[in-house]
Structure formats: C-alpha cells, structure tokens
C-alpha cells in the first residue's frame, strides 16, 4: 500500500505487550474454554447518542469473558442524514442507503490499512442488505443516509497466536454487532423503520473435549473452540418474524439436512437476545 501522505505503522503484525500472567498460562498449555451456556450470548453494552455532531449515533461493546485485558468487540456507529443527494445522482423516490464499515488500524491482530479492503467492503454490503429490509425507504424521497461504523476493537483474542489463518470467523461477530449498533443509531436518528433489526451468530463447533463431536453454540469466540465447522450470521426482525440478511459460511455434513435449519434457528435466538438489549437501550433514551 503506497500511502506516502500518512505516517504508517509497521505493515506486519506487531507484538503487543504480553503480561506475565498471560504468558505463563500460554506456556503451560492454558486454553480458553467456553464457560457460558451454548445458548447464551456474551454481555453487551449499548448506548445511543454518543456523537453530538451526527444525526444519530450508537456505541456497542461486547465483553471478552475470562481473561482480563483481552479485547472484545467495540463498535461506534454514526448516521448522517437524511440529507440531499449529490447533484450527479439520478432522481430517487426513496432514501438511498450507503453503509461503510471501517476497521481502525489497531482493531485486529493484523494491522489494517487506511484504504478499504475487501473484508470491509463485504461487511458494508451485508450491513446494507440487513438494514434495507428494516427501513421504510419511501418516507424519505430524494434523500440519502450514510451509516458509518468504526470497528475500534475487532473481537480477537490477542493472547493466542493460533487461529491466525482463519480469522474470518470473527467477521461474523463483527457483522452481527454492526447490525445491532446500526439499528440503534438509525432509531436515534429518527429514520422510519419497520422494526428494530438485530444481528446474531450461531456456529457449529468441534471440540476436543467432546470427543470430536459437533455442537451448535451461539455467539462463538473462535479462540475458545478447537475448530469451527460452519457459522451463520442472521439479521432478524423480531416482531415481524422476518430475516433480512443471512450469511452462511463453512462446511456442513451433507447427511444431516436439518443442521442448516437448526443453525439458522440458533442464529435467530442469538439475535433475539441482542434485540432485548437494543430495546432496553432505546427505552432508556427517553425521560
């Protein structure tokens, strides 16, 4: 990336300070294991109206259980608009959504550049699809709205060196957080929505402790499991009982046809739990 105008950090992985406790655990073969129930999501914190200059904004934080100092998920979302479209764009009878997801350079183990990379583009497209199903677009003719999400921490366990190759499983968690936080910011901006959309992730994991048998967990943390076989991220409207976006990835054993449906249902369950936080957060904004 030939970006000469800014002072770039080192291009490769950097070594964050590792404190003695952690390194002892690492060397003694310590491995994070999931202590939550398979059907519970992590605790999250959501607050709207954090950016005064934006029409609507929200901040989401998901904890990383177990280790102290390990990074969870931190997202900040701003919504700008509805505002007039640029002169070059054609007439539109409905609102035009544009969503941008940007990782902070320090958000993940691998340092991110300032230019948009394919992952960010992909997340932006998924987010746009998820929100388009929730917005009542024809209430706002001839206008556009920009949804900008900054990923401050990308839900990666910095202590572990393994799983470095398939870090794309974390993108699912990031996307589900993005959907939830964008929904809160849209409600804060006063843009008409059919429902509050929230994201949820379910994964089919294989753990050595379970004699190699697979099971379905929701809100998975990749470092807590030996292998993730498949995962799906669902954007779900609870009062309509509709899915606006579904992202499915991985391999499922072909002989178990019901597994696919099961995974989506667990994703919906995760989304419902996130939606409870969302509803409570929106309720606190008034009064």
């Amino acid at each position, binding site marked *: 990336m030939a970006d000469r105008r800014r002072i770039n950090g080192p291009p490769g992985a950097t070594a964050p300070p590792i404190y003695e406790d952690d390194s002892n655990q690492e060397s003694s073969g310590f491995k994070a294991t999931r202590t939550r129930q398979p059907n519970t999501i992590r605790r999250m914190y959501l607050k709207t*109206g954090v950016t005064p200059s934006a*029409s609507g904004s929200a901040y989401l934080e998901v904890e990383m259980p177990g280790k102290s100092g390990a990074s969870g998920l931190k997202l900040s979302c701003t919504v700008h*608009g*509805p*505002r*007039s*479209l640029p*002169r070059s*764009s*054609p*007439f*539109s009878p409905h609102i035009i959504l544009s969503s941008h997801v940007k990782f902070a350079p320090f958000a993940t183990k691998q340092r991110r550049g300032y230019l948009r990379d394919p992952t960010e583009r992909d997340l932006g497209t998924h987010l746009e699809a998820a929100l388009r199903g*929730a917005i*009542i677009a024809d*209430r*706002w*003719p*001839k*206008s556009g709205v920009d949804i900008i999400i900054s990923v401050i921490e990308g839900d990666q366990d910095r202590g572990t060196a393994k799983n470095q190759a398939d870090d794309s499983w974390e993108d699912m968690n990031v996307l589900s957080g993005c959907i939830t936080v964008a929904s809160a910011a849209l*409600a*804060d*901006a*006063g843009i*008409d*929505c*059919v*429902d*509050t959309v929230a994201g949820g992730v379910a994964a089919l994991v294989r753990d050595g402790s379970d004699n190699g048998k697979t099971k379905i967990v929701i809100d998975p943390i990749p470092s807590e499991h030996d292998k993730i076989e498949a995962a799906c991220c669902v954007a779900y*409207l*609870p*009062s*309509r009982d509709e899915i606006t976006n579904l992202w499915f990835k991985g391999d499922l054993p072909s002989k178990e046809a019901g597994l696919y449906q099961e995974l989506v249902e667990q994703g919906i369950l995760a989304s419902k739990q996130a939606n409870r936080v969302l*509803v*409570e957060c*929106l*309720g606190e*904004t*008034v*009064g």
Partner: protein
Amino acid sequence: MSAATATPLAIPGQPLGSTSKYQPGPGTHIHQSTLYSSLLGVVHIVQPAKAPGPVKRLNKIAPASAPAELPTISVSRSGVSEKREVLPEVGNTVLCRVVRITPRQAVVAILICGDTVLDAEWQGIIRVQDVRATEKDRVKIYESFRPGDIVRAEVISLGDQANYYLSTARNELGVIMATSEAGNTMFPVSWKEYQDPETGAVEPRKVAKPY
C-alpha cells in the same frame, strides 16, 4: 419500562393497536391491519375534531367520512430529540433564499419548512411560469426576485434529482424580505414593488401579501 412512565414510549416495530381503533398518523405504519410505530418517540393520540354546532342540512353529496371518526395515533420525536429531520413535501409552505436567477427560473435554497428549520440544505427552483397566477407570459424573473431575497413559497413538486419545484402563484406568497442595490432593507409599497427607505429608490419584486 414504558408502561411506568407518564408518556408512553414507542420503539420501532412496537404494535400500537388495530386499524379499526386508530387512524395512522406520522411515525406509524400499517402491517396486516395493525398499526406499528416506525420511530423511537412518544405516542400521541389525537381525538377527531367534533363538528362545530348542529349538523347542517345536507345540500351536497359528500362521501361518508366514517374513518375520520377514529382518533389519530402518531409517534413524535419531540420528547427524544429536537433534531428531527424534515423533508419538504408537496403542499408545504417554505421559506427560502434566492441564490441565483436566470431568465427562465430562480434558484433558491430552502431554509425553513413549515415551522422547522432544516438541517440539510435543499435546493429549489421557481420557474418563470410559477411566479404568479395571472399574466404568466409577462413575468420576468429579474422583476420578481433578486439574489439574496427571502421568499415564501409553496412546494408544488418533488421535482428532478436536485431541485424541488416551488411556486409563488398566490397573494400571500412571494418576497418577504429584500435588500436594495444600495444594501438597505426595503419595505413593500405595492403588490409588485419594494422601496428603499433611505434612497427612495423603488425596485420591482413579486411581493408577498402581509398576513
């Protein structure tokens, strides 16, 4: 949470009641004959206005206004945030500033829509045929508006991609504030003239009738 507070709060997707009980107002939508909130805000229920006085004898055929009897339910952002974006809609009266004029149209920036000051800047156009209702073919834009004038106008169309189409073809629409070439604020002297109080110069405008 919302039940405890005095003003009931609605979040998007919250059911508000059946369409047989309420009429939909702003901030609501209908799905499968149930009204839902589409905004985060405070629920207002407005009872329909009763017909004043005794009912007159029917002297014309009017459609039966059964749905008008229902109270209107709406969700407003007033309790949540004052920053409510509004879009100009057809039929709204807006205040705007003239940005530039051409022989065929005046380009304006819409500043206020109804009672709300707009956050974003929306551009509008007053075409020469929309300046006044009579003698449309004699209208000259430079005898009606000048850049910098504040104009009260009505939205007649959402227009093309960039502009709303506005009209001043009513007595109470037109220039409400104007500055002379000398730079002084002028006062209206007739339906088509403004006068400078210091130099006494008279300039032509499409003058709005004072309320």
